[in-house]
């Protein structure tokens, strides 16, 4: 220990030296992409519009559930341009106007925008208001013109607008103010200037408005009452006929409003399909003459043959998807139909009036891990022989997007990765012997060639082509994407769970997908109707014992959105992606508590709390139970009830009472509760330390060799409450009405260790808790600026341990286990600083041993990640630090935190829609791995105190080698010379 402490000043000195030499961490232009990767996604496609004009590049415009509008290259699936709208600006519809503008309707139909098709620049924006909330529709008719102006027809917020396509000016508007009128369709029949608005009123009345498209004049208003009401949506089968279901879902209504006259035709479904039972739903589509209904697991396609007569075209129990119709030449309409059959999908393209004939029929092998086809979009092209060719864009269950053409998948995009719910990491397998010889030989040549090139580069002999080659070699180094563990721990697997219920393993080296698995347990099934993936936990991390076992992760999911829906657990092998087992639980999952104990196979014990506050232990083995029983009295849990402002602490009692004897189920009893007054405080954020965080030391050495003892506890909860009035947007309250209170609560005893009030402050609050400090971000209403505050906790009861001899002889109790019931004396130090950016997420770097200094990683509103040294958030900063404090590395206090442009971790890139930042320690103490996810993914390595424990990437090995060789040669030569001289001496 003496030796270690002896060296620590050296180490610290070295760190200080390095950090003072270059206070910011930045990289050179040619280092971009060496250790980092960036992937761009768009999310699950909601709507797609093709733009395949003869001139210009073929592209498809899509809108997605992640609120992205993007233009994709039809040939390769690459993104031409992309815009992410805010989360409160949901896209309702997109279309292309005049062949050169992309028109989007968003924010519940109140914002209409036009974007330039080739480059995505916004052309104009219009705000459309209306009397009441309603469904919204966007129509871009090709032939409707008002004074040579092309018109966009928008129905939104109970008002019909005609908007100019050129400048977004509203040409006319018409209100539909009838109280109960619910619009169902807005129809613009081709070849006329009429617009039909149809909908239901008072749930049993069908209303039809006929409007002159040129001036918005109401031409006709008809309504008919249908006594048994309507259910769900309507399907448009021709420009003047819709099909609806009655409220029982068993009678089909064909509603025709030709020439303004409404006529009903009722057809019980049982007439068409004798085994019909239970309610049916209409699958929304807009193919003329055909619509589809779904009942139980059967899809029925029904043809409308004149005068409201219905006829079954096809019944199928395969999963199917149908596209909207596509106008071909000569007034023909085509549509695409996709049916699943085993591991294949059958694609058929048919003409709307000719069900039995196929324009195209193809079978395509489909990866089972992509699930079902959710959406189909069809587009045609003219082949060289003047016949029609078709390409089909399909959206799969895992949110991926595929383009099918000529029976093959032309390209695919893994857009499920745009909506990541949770991330964890796993080690790669250990490298074993048995690499094939041929591969080595091949590599040897490549290796030699590479080194020759590098040598050329270092000796400045390389030509520009060589330089380019060297750069591409550096970027594509096979070393970083190897499938085995490396010495430095840089290569790992990122296991991500997406909203689609698919699990991906991404390689940290270059971000490629190692495996992907659509969770069977997250598949719709009889007992579990709408499963939702919740979280990922590291279930088994073998490193000491059980080295032969593969690591595995636990996926916790729930059947349905309500909190008391039963839970589902799946266990996934992280090397192969196979689902080892899955458990359908009888109880709900309200909380998952990973315990700090593992069994002999290194499976981590988890405690699942259900909605009745029973605790269930997993894995259900006797060994786990015995471990758990040993620690039973020391395990507590707490719950934060945000809606009523209560934090409760619980202890475990023996065995569940009442139900069937289950030795893995435990009753709990309430120990304490912290009740926040609901009229003045509302919980908006809670943060704890990361379970796996490693802290190197409990002491902090300050100036003049003094020591402060950190208060380090895993059982601390940081809670922020705000005034209920201040929950809204920033600026919605005056500073006097708004305050923010931060608490530090001991979750075992319920003791409030610290409480601080910020008057005139408002949320949203983002916070990060690490070691003995917490940093949080909020808005200061008085200063009109964002602030970052830091609270550090120190243990006063240990402060007297300063006798050197006691410490030398080990006669102290600083490392003996402590109980939280012993009431530690905690003192806090805190400070606040202004901060320019608003923040989307905050994380902190974590390293293997916790020695390296920390950096805060701040996800800014510009979707970038900023690294900020923790030294800037040190409550011991003062305006004029003493010499000793300066030597310690304390920065003079300034009112705001500096933002150094070079310290953006994401350099020139943006992680669109940034949601989370995850840090994972590498094996190398200086380095931490950072993964930022949103719509885009970004990964990089960071060394907060520079890489003091390894040579940098640009280290000149050639020079070292040359020096060594020269030295060895010199030694040899001088040895020979001296030997010869000695001999001559002897002869003299």
């Amino acid at each position, binding site marked *: *220990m*003496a030796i*270690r*402490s*002896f060296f*620590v*000043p050296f180490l610290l*000195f070295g760190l200080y030296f390095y950090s003072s030499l270059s206070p910011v961490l930045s990289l050179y232009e040619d280092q971009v992409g060496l250790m980092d990767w960036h992937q761009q996604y768009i999310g699950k496609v909601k709507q797609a519009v093709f733009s395949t004009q003869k001139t210009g590049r073929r592209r498809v415009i899509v809108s997605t559930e992640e609120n992205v509008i993007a233009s994709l290259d039809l040939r390769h699936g690459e993104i031409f341009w992309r815009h992410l709208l805010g989360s409160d600006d949901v896209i309702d519809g997109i279309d292309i106007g005049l062949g050169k503008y992309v028109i989007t309707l968003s924010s519940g139909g109140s914002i209409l925008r036009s974007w330039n098709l080739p480059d995505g620049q916004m052309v104009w924006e219009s705000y459309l208001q209306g009397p009441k909330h309603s469904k919204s529709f966007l129509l871009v008719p090709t032939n409707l013109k008002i004074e040579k102006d092309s018109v966009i027809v928008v129905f939104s917020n109970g008002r019909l607008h005609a908007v100019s396509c050129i400048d977004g000016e509203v040409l006319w508007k018409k209100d539909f103010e009838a109280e109960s009128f619910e619009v169902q369709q807005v129809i613009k029949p081709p070849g006329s200037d009429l617009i039909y608005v149809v909908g239901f009123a008072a749930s049993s009345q069908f209303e039809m408005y006929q409007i002159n498209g040129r001036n918005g004049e109401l031409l006709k208003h008809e309504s008919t009452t249908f006594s048994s009401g309507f259910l769900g949506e309507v399907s448009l089968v021709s420009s003047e006929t819709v099909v609806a279901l009655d409220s029982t879902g068993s009678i089909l209504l064909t509603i025709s409003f030709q020439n303004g006259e409404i006529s009903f035709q009722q057809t019980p479904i049982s007439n068409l399909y004798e085994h019909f039972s239970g309610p049916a739903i209409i699958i929304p589509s807009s193919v003329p003459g055909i619509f589809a209904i779904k009942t139980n697991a059967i899809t029925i396609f029904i043809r409308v043959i004149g005068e409201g007569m219905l006829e079954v075209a096809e019944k199928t129990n395969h999963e199917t998807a149908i596209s909207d119709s596509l106008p071909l030449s000569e007034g023909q309409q085509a549509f695409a139909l996709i049916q699943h059959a085993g591991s294949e999908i059958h694609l058929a393209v048919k003409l709307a009036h000719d069900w039995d004939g196929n324009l195209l029929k193809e079978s395509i092998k489909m990866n089972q891990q992509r699930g079902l086809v959710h959406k189909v979009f069809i587009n045609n092209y003219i082949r060289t022989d003047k016949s029609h060719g078709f390409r089909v864009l399909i959206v799969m269950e895992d949110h991926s997007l595929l383009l099918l053409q000529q029976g093959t998948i032309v390209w695919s995009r893994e857009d499920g990765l745009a909506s990541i719910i949770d991330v964890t990491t796993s080690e790669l397998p250990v490298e074993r012997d048995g690499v094939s010889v041929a591969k080595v030989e091949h590599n040897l040549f490549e290796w030699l060639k590479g080194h020759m090139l590098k040598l050329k580069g270092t000796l400045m002999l390389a030509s520009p082509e060589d330089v380019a080659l060297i750069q591409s070699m550096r970027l594509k180094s096979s070393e970083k994407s190897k499938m085995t563990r490396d010495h430095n721990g840089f290569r790992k697997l990122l296991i991500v769970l997406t909203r689609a219920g698919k699990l991906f393993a991404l390689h940290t080296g270059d971000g490629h997908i190692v495996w992907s698995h659509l969770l069977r347990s997250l598949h719709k099934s009889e007992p579990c109707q709408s499963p939702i993936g*919740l*979280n990922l936990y590291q279930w088994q991390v073998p490193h000491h014992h059980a080295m032969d076992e593969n690591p595995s992760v636990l996926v916790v999911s*729930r059947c349905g959105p309500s*909190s008391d829906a039963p839970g589902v657990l799946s266990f996934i092998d992280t090397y192969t992606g196979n689902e080892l087992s899955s458990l359908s639980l009888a109880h709900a999952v*309200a*909380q*998952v*508590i*990973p*315990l*700090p104990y593992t069994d002999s196979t290194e499976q981590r014990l988890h*405690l699942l709390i259900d*909605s009745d506050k029973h605790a269930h232990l997993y894995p259900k083995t006797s060994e786990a139970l015995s471990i758990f029983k040993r*620690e039973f009295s*020391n*395990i*507590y*849990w*707490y*719950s*934060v009830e945000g809606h009523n402002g209560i934090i409760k*602490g619980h202890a475990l009692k023996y065995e569940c009472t009442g139900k069937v004897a289950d030795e893995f189920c435990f009753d709990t009893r309430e120990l304490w509760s912290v009740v926040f007054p609901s009229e003045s405080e509302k919980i908006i954020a*809670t943060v*704890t330390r990361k*379970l796996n965080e490693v*802290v*190197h*030391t*409990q*002491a902090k*050495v300050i100036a003049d*060799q*003094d*020591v402060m003892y*950190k208060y*380090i*506890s*895993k*059982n601390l909860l940081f809670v922020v409450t705000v005034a209920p009035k201040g929950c809204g947007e920033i600026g919605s309250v005056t500073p006097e009405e708004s305050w923010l209170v931060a608490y530090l609560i001991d*979750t*075992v005893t319920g003791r409030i260790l610290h409480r601080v009030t910020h008057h005139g402050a408002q949320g949203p609050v983002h916070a990060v808790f690490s070691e003995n400090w917490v940093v949080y971000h909020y808005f200061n209403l008085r200063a009109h600026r964002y602030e970052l505050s830091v609270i550090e906790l120190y243990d006063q009861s240990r402060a007297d*341990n300063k*006798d*050197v001899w006691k*410490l030398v002889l080990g006669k102290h109790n*600083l*490392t*003996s*286990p*402590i*109980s*939280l019931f012993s009431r530690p004396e905690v003192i806090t130090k805190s400070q606040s600083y202004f901060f320019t950016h608003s923040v989307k997420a905050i994380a902190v770097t974590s390293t293997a041993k916790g020695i390296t200094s920390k950096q805060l990683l701040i996800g800014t509103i510009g979707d970038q990640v900023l690294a900020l040294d923790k030294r800037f958030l040190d409550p011991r900063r003062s305006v004029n630090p003493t010499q000793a404090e300066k030597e310690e590395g304390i920065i003079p206090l300034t009112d705001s935190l500096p933002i150094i442009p070079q310290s953006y971790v994401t350099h020139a890139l943006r992680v669109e829609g940034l949601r989370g930042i995850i840090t994972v320690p590498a094996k190398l103490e200086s380095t931490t791995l950072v993964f930022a996810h949103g719509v885009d993914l970004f990964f990089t390595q960071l060394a907060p105190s520079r890489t003091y424990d390894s040579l940098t990437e640009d280290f000149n090995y050639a020079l070292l080698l040359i020096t060594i060789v020269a030295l060895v040669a010199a030694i040899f030569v001088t040895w020979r010379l001296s030997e010869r001289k000695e001999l001559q001496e002897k002869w003299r």
Partner: protein
Amino acid sequence: MGSGRRWAVSFSDNSTSPSCRDIRDPPGFTRASVDQDDSTASRQKKDAESNWKAQKAWEVAQAPFKNLLMMGFMMWMAGNTVHLFSIGITFSALWQPVSALQGVGKVFEPYKDSKVELLGPKLLFIALNLGGLALGVWKLNTLGLLPTHASDWVSSLPPAQEVEYSGGGIPL
């Protein structure tokens, strides 16, 4: 002289044994005086030599003092911050006395004599070198490289384990 032996060289030194002397002394050399004063002169000479040795031994013993002064000056020049120069000076200041102390016997070897009292010089030598060592250690301490503070002993003390464990949070 035998018939088989033509010549012989006798390596035995006969210079001091006058009995078998058959060669005349070189001119100017009188053997008688040497022989007469032999005992007193040698005693005198030995006394002088031991005196000289004792004097030399004291000189050698005092030598580190100069060194000490020089070291002190160097240390003062090196300053109190940790860098290559000051570390080099300090370590040489530590190493010199240690190596000198290791070679105490060897240093006083030439002056070893039954009549010469070497304990005094040796003690002085050791004391001065210890002084040098102390100076080195003091310098080390002023540089902050000695673990004399509590901070040096707790800086890598791991955090204490907690008996209780609590988990939970906002319901999923």
